[in-house]
């Protein structure tokens, strides 16, 4: 396997990490006002993601940095091309990050309610836009002979792109609900489990439509297999939810999201950004990549440090493994 393929795979791994981890905290954020009926419930919901959401978000920073380092042309074309979409995404992430950290720092109903809306919107918009972005990357966008994107924001908002956005959004909502079922207690837990199934059924239909459409456009044997596995694990997650095996349900939805990313990346390979203008203008793992020297150094760094990161992030989840209670903690400030 050449270095370019290794880095294509590593970037897929980073996106898997991001979508699986930030996926559930986006889901919890989107559901904050839907499932959280009162202050204590909302606080409990936020406590389930509180210790980990920031670490989850770093996955996207590393994915972005790794794309810059390994495939500068991909990074440059993508980020300058999807300009306004990324701006909206950044605004969402900024507002959300501040909202999660600030909402409990002042004991005032208006203050909290505003931040709660900000958390919900700031989770909804990026979840949707990541889906739109990935659908468009896979389907191909207008790129000229100089590797420049020639479309605009509306180019991205095509039916396939929007379906991709909806799919990722719904996957994250289901994933978040399943996570809340796993991490909370009492009535909140029951409602989260019920919601996970209801949204999950819709998600399954939408996701199958999206993955099917993806295969129609870019079928490769591997990506078809992965698409089927994605659907299988997601259905498995819903089945586990029905029989109240919350741990398995979460593993199932996590695996489904991970496999969905794998499906998209295998459909993409060896392109990184196919051109809809002319296939000859497509960005591939070869014409977009850094030198072998840089990729070798990056590989060494990644091989040494990624396991360490996984180890201590895993430890965090172990430390906070207990369910969060909605018992009346005295709300002082």
């Amino acid at each position: 396997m050449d270095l370019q393929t290794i880095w294509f795979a590593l970037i897929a791994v980073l996106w898997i990490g991001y979508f699986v981890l930030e996926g559930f905290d986006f889901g919890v954020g989107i559901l904050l006002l839907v499932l959280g009926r009162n202050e204590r419930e909302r606080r409990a919901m936020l406590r389930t993601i509180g210790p980990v959401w920031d670490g989850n978000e770093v996955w996207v920073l590393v994915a972005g940095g790794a794309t810059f380092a390994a495939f500068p042309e991909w990074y440059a074309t993508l980020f300058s091309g999807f300009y306004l979409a990324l701006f909206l995404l950044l605004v969402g992430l900024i507002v959300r990050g501040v909202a999660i950290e600030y909402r409990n720092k002042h004991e005032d109903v208006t203050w909290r309610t505003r931040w709660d809306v900000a958390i919900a919107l700031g989770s909804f918009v990026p979840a949707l836009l990541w889906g739109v972005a990935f659908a468009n990357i896979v389907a191909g966008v207008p790129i000229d002979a100089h590797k420049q994107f020639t479309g605009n924001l509306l180019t991205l908002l095509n039916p396939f792109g929007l379906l991709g956005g909806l799919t990722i959004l719904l996957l994250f909502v289901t994933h978040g609900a399943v996570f809340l079922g796993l991490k909370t207690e009492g009535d909140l837990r029951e409602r989260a489990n019920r919601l996970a199934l209801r949204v999950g059924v819709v998600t399954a239909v939408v996701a199958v439509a999206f993955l099917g459409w993806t295969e129609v456009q870019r079928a490769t044997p591997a990506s078809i297999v992965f698409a089927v596995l994605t659907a299988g694990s997601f259905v498995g997650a819903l089945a586990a939810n029905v029989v109240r095996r919350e741990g398995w349900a979460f593993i199932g939805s996590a695996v489904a999201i991970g496999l969905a990313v794998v499906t998209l990346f295998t459909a993409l390979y060896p392109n990184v950004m196919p051109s809809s203008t002319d296939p000859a203008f497509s960005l591939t793992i070869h014409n977009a990549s850094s030198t072998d020297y840089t990729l070798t150094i990056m590989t060494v760094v990644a091989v040494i440090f990624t396991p360490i990161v996984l180890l201590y992030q895993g430890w965090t989840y172990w430390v906070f493994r207990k369910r969060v209670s909605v018992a009346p903690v005295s709300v002082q400030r």
Partner: protein
Amino acid sequence: MSALDLARWQFAITTVYHFLFVPLTIGLSFFVAGLQTAWVRTGDAKYLRLTRFFGELFLINFALGVVTGIVQEFQFGMNWSSYSRFVGDIFGAPLAIEGLLAFFLESTFLGLWIFGWDRLPKKVHLATIWITAVGTAISAYIILAANSWMQHPVGYEFNAAAGRAELKDFLAVVLNDTAIVTFGHTIVAVFLTTGAFVAGIAMWRLLRRGGQEDAPAFRGMAKAGAWIVVVSAVLVLATGDVQSKVMTQQQPMKMAAAEALYNTEQPASFSIFTIGSLDGSKEVFSIRIPNLLSFLATGDVNGKVEGINDLQAQEAAKYGPGDYRPYAPLAYWSYRLMIGMGTLAALAALWFLWAMRRGRTPGRLAVTTAIALPFLPLLANSLGWVFTEFGRQPWIVFGLMSTESGVSPTGSALEVGLTMVGFTLLYGALAVVEVRLLLRRIRAGLPPAEAAGLEPSLALGY
């Protein structure tokens, strides 16, 4: 304004704004770790309360540092895609490595610190804040190494066929002497900023009307903060001096612009203040220290310092016809005011120490000083970056790529303008929220000791 101008404005606004939070994030993480260490070692509840007080302020600040940092990584690709294509082989790696080595460390262990009060053994919990602090310092070094490569590119070769710069020696980039001196100067400035923040807040608490509660604790903090400022200020001067000499060798034009020195002089004097036409033709009034510029630039009081006009001729001969001069008034004043603001902060801290000697309490004037003190280093830091980045113009990578050719060809002025206004408004609103929140917490004073160590919901806000 063109898309280029707007992209430059956007970079300046978002970067200077981001860097208001970065120094306090780094410095306060170490400071809070120190306070918590004092608590773990002595068991004195005062230190626990101080840990929680400054810990809260640290977290309020940290949140904005994190979210504004995301923009930094994205905008190289969004607004500077030609730059990204040209240098990605070299410049991308530090960004990826910063995320992998530093951001994961900071965010994960800070999460453990915030929520781990009742879940982790005392010493393990203490370790989490120290690891967070180390993470912030690692992050600082890596990103400064990336910036230093733009100031003084090393370890690369230009590949004409590929039309880009390519990495040849990774260690040369990481151990770039520019990066080492820049990190030295930045990290001590970070502690100066933190000391000023702590001293200002503690002094204000100490002197405000009816603010006698917890006076001993705040008195101690005012002194500690002031000492940190004074010691850091000496180190800032020393490291700044080393950095100036390296800069004079590597970017002589920047040093000449810093002094608005148009003609080569030997020895060269340093003007503290000049009124005159800045094109160098006429000087109306100037306060000058003889030989100082020679010493700052070369380490020799009689050293030769080259002027802008000579350097312009040299660079034109080397790189082809063009204007290689940065905008001198901006370089001149940002350099001076940076030094001035830092010096003022040091003087204020010295005065605090003098006025608090042997149990004395300073008078009302100290209240105003305490309010101004935290802002002085913030201003100095911003001016330092303005100087560093504007002084490098017209280059985006010194001697290798012009700023003009680094901008994204796809971005229209309308789009770039839209996002610039968008970020500016959003950042402005967040600044108001942040300052209000900080003030509310400072007014509330030290939190009670008994709540800490119980439910984290009481401990740190959830």
